[in-house]
């Protein structure tokens, strides 16, 4: 059993046109930068991407959009980039917008072997159109189905040779959920260590969910909204 791959190109070798892919991250935070770059090089097309956001013009999933590799986006919030908007308005790109909690929970459902879940998000709105509504304790819920993804690309802070993963701060976001949900889960990590070096009590994603792992390089970790406060001058 060897889960270790040399790099993104090797780990993504068998991804086919038309694949359904999940990509971790929130905005540009915690995104699988190496996997995205390798996909751009590889040129795989007609992808369905499940990701909370669609990146910006020149980073993140925006890079795949630039190359017109994406057929459909399933996201909760998109459109931080002009190319996305152009493709959407011209009909080149399909977009399915779903509530963020629904997106997260449909990933978790897949990882936990639950075919569907109930959530109140979207009841009474256009999100509910065509969906089954059910009342529990006088509150209405929508029935939402688990995702079915061929691949999940996730980015972790640390990983070990067994595929165990630890994320950093809010870069965790959708990553552990998508790691559980992918039929084949590919993890890129900033630090790759031997089995036993991570604290078994503090693993965020157990290795059973991770099929391939590699040490990523050249992390840019671009910041979308740099907000700071001024330092008070020394007295």
């Amino acid at each position, binding site marked *: 059993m060897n889960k270790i791959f040399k790099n993104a190109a090797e780990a993504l070798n068998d991804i086919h046109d038309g694949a359904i892919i999940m990509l971790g991250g929130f*905005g540009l935070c915690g995104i699988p930068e190496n996997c995205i770059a390798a996909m751009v090089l590889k040129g795989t097309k007609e992808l369905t991407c499940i990701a909370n956001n669609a990146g910006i013009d020149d980073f993140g999933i925006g890079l795949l959009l630039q190359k017109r590799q994406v057929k459909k986006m399933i996201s909760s919030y998109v459109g931080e980039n002009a190319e996305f908007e152009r493709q959407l308005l011209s009909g080149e790109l399909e977009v399915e917008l779903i509530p963020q909690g629904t997106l997260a929970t449909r990933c978790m459902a897949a990882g936990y072997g639950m075919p569907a879940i109930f959530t109140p998000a979207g009841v009474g709105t256009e999100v509910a159109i065509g969906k089954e509504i059910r009342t529990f304790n006088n509150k209405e819920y929508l029935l939402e189905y688990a995702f079915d993804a061929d691949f999940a690309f996730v980015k972790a802070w640390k990983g070990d040779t067994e595929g165990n993963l630890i994320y950093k701060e809010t870069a965790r976001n959708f990553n552990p959920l998508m790691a559980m949900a992918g039929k084949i889960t590919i993890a890129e990590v900033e630090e790759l260590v031997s089995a036993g070096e991570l604290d078994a009590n503090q693993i965020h994603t157990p290795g059973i969910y991770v099929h391939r792992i590699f040490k990523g390089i050249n992390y840019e970790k671009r910041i979308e909204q740099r907000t700071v406060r001024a*330092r008070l001058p020394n007295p």
Partner: protein
Amino acid sequence: MLNKNQIAQRLAKELKDGFYVNLGIGIPTLVANYIPEGIKVVLQSENGLLGMGAFPFEGEEDPDLINAGKQTITSVPGSSFFDSAMSFGMIRAGKVDLTILGAMEVSEKGDIANWKIPGKMVKGMGGAMDLVASAKNIIVAMMHSNPKGESKLLPRCVLPLTGIGCVKKIVTELAVLDVTKEGFKLLERAPGVSVEEIVAKTAGKLIIEGEIPEMEW
């Protein structure tokens, strides 16, 4: 008439000691600057953080630490990080005591519209639909009228809905109103704003009982 910071200041009066609070983008974010003394609240950021702190000092930005508005932030001592399923899990389970968010329209039934303008580019609902469908206590912070001068407090929403029957209270630059079964109930008016002005600018059913006091904070 209040400015945005004053609206935030009035909103801050709704905070109670021990509250877990989710603040939306815009005016709600400013509420964090006016937390009353002696009161401790914990801010939840739905991208996976309890215990959101202030913006970082320049040079100390951490790309792995952002809020739901994708801004660099800090975390306070005693904070915790978690994944998005747990984050919306605690929201759905009603563990977050108060949610303050902006809106484009609110109806007299408490419906809210704040995510989509037909004909314009649609960016998505993000976590707004989850928040409004789940939170037990939702306060809307917004301007009383839209840029065209039309009331945002309506008999029913015209824009696509984000959620139904969920808004409990509204704070605008003119007034504080409860959303009741009978309609918008005027509770307070901004300093120098007359009841007549509020009546004129509120399209939905407005209930006025007795003397309406000026806001205090």
